[in-house]
């Protein structure tokens, strides 16, 4: 699939909330987001921020307490239900080695392919394709348990790819492996992106997120506290307001999405002209502003500025 010039929204979450029975608070709280087709979207945040619950909701593992998730929201020809869309288009790559260590690489792939593909010839084609794509041909007959960490990670990815998905959810796919294997896997994921696959990526490795993702959503207490376009914006302007003194008109002028209780906002700036416009608008109306912070736009900066600003 070729990457569209203007990426279409492939997953739309609207006012999504989820509360576990054992918890007093919502793990995901009125969250709205859009995942764009053919892009890599990173979902980051500290432990307990609601990343796992958000992903579980997006890939249909959990049913939202309120709000809704829809796949291909702008495609009028798509008449499939949410579950049918997930079954047809989604593959998961969990952090754990989600395969059978007693089976060989080939047997693992054969089993998982058999879950989705009834035709023998097509199964064989998918098997070869997955082995080739993840460079596993020469270890196809080896037991999965005897593989190195890097190859186990590749097998974890190959199983997901053997389903020919359009959307892939990944959880820390490079954890516990050496730098060379890590770079191989990052290259593989970049290759998938180039093929037009949509990746939704969670990781604590912020440099990887920055390298791979086109957009990063920073979560805290079940809310998106910042969204950054990593590929376009070179600088980041973080504006902090006094509590309950949000300058809505300024936020609207700067085209910053805002929620009622939020006090800190991050704005990506792509070039000098853009920065000049932001300066001009800020100088015209400083009402309610407690602090303005300029930094180089990196995921690390976004992450730390957002928390330092007291957003969490």
């Amino acid at each position, binding site marked *: 699939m070729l990457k569209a010039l203007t990426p279409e929204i492939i997953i739309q979450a609207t006012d999504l909330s989820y509360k576990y029975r054992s918890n007093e608070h919502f793990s995901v709280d009125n969250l709205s987001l859009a995942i764009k087709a053919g892009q890599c979207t990173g979902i980051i945040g500290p432990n307990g921020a609601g990343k796992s619950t958000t992903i579980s909701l997006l890939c249909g593992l959990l049913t939202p307490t309120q709000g809704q998730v829809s796949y291909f929201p702008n495609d009028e020809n798509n008449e499939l239900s949410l579950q049918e869309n*997930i079954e047809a288009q989604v593959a998961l790559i969990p952090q*754990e080695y*989600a395969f059978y260590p007693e089976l060989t690489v080939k047997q693992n792939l054969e089993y998982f392919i058999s879950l989705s593909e009834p035709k023998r010839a097509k199964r064989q084609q998918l098997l070869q394709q997955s082995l080739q794509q993840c460079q596993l041909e020469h270890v196809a007959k080896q037991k999965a348990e005897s593989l190195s960490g890097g190859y186990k990670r590749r097998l974890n990815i190959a199983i997901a790819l053997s389903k020919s998905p359009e959307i892939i959810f990944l959880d820390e796919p490079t954890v516990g492996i050496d730098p060379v294997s890590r770079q191989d896997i990052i290259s593989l994921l970049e290759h998938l992106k180039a093929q037009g696959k949509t990746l939704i990526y969670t990781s604590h490795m912020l440099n990887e997120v920055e390298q791979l993702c086109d957009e990063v959503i920073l979560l805290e207490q079940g809310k998106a506290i910042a969204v950054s376009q990593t590929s376009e914006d070179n600088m980041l302007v973080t504006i902090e307001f006094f509590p309950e003194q949000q300058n809505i008109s300024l936020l609207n002028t700067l085209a910053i999405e805002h929620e009622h209780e939020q006090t800190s906002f991050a704005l990506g700036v792509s070039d000098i002209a853009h920065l000049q416009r932001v300066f001009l608008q800020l100088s015209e109306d400083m009402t309610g502003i407690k602090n303005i912070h300029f930094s180089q736009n990196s995921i690390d900066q976004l992450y730390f500025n957002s928390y330092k600003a007291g957003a969490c």
Partner: protein
Amino acid sequence: MLIQSVKKEAIIIANDLHSLAVLILLPITFMVIMTLAMGEQQENLVKKINIALECEAQCDEEQLLALTHYIESSGLGVNQMDDKFDASLMVQANFTDNLLMRQGSGKLALDFSPQLSPQIRAMVVEFVKVALSKLKLHVYMQDIGDFDEELPLAEKVAIVNRSASVDYLLSQDEQQQIFSAPTLYSIPSWLIFGLYFIVLPISTTLIKEKENGTLLRIQTYPIGNHYYFFNKALSYGVVSIFQWLLLSVVGLLCVPWLTEQAVLVINSPGLYVLAGFFIIFAAIGFAFLLASLVNTFEQAIVLGGGINILLAALSGFMVPIDIMPQALANIATFSPMYWSSELLKQALAGATLMQATTNLLLLLSFGSLCFITALFIFNYKTKRLSWT
């Protein structure tokens, strides 16, 4: 998908030494041990019991020797009081008068070693009574002159033994004689014990799949939970059929040969095959129910293994139901392992399909109930799976 599932489960079990030991080695070992133990009890155990026979006062020498012969003819050993003995018989003074004419109080005092079990004590008492009956007949025949005075004691004992024999009066159905074979008692029991232990590989596989995210991954495939569940059950069904065939060959042919017991003949082959399917259905249903309840490997071993051992004990696999207290024997009739072993014994003994209907229906109902409950719990739990 089914072929791949069967292949996967078979490879996983073949790679798991614990599962192989529990499914194959453990039942075979029990078959051999228990067949030997049961055979020993019925044939050789009696020979090991020694009875010390002594006279308290002056005794009739011939009577004492005759009593020794009659006791020995039942299989018990007779020794002197100073040897190692399990029971002692003291012939009191005036025993002969009491024996023939019921005069005086001379008796035969029977005493046991504290180590002797209650079952063996009861058996020894019965054997001594038979020996005493023969001795009484011996003394009576002597008294009325039935014996030639020159006849040696051994001849007299032989005449009495022939006269006292009642074997010709007892008729026993040939088919019923199969129930006397110790193999019939131990082999079906331990074969079934092995089949029900499928709970361990099923539980551990399900827990592993949940823990390593495989189950999570499978949730995004176009297969429903119920389809996945029954596919897994069918896969284990195929594994159990293989286990059933292997244990049947070993149990019916190899163990009898090894333990020098009669080879078991399947008198109702059709019923035996049908019984196999019904027993496997119930065993896998029960295994899935237990597997759906447990969350950790420890729970699987304690609950799965523990309940199976408890059921085996209650179903009379370890201690025969005949010698259990009535309350426990009643509980056994509610055990699926008991229904399974009874069904198998019926198939071996040549019962008809009609005669086996009750056990077949009980197993079918039990298995169905287990599967439905297990699927309900499995669905409930998988709906609560979330990204780690």
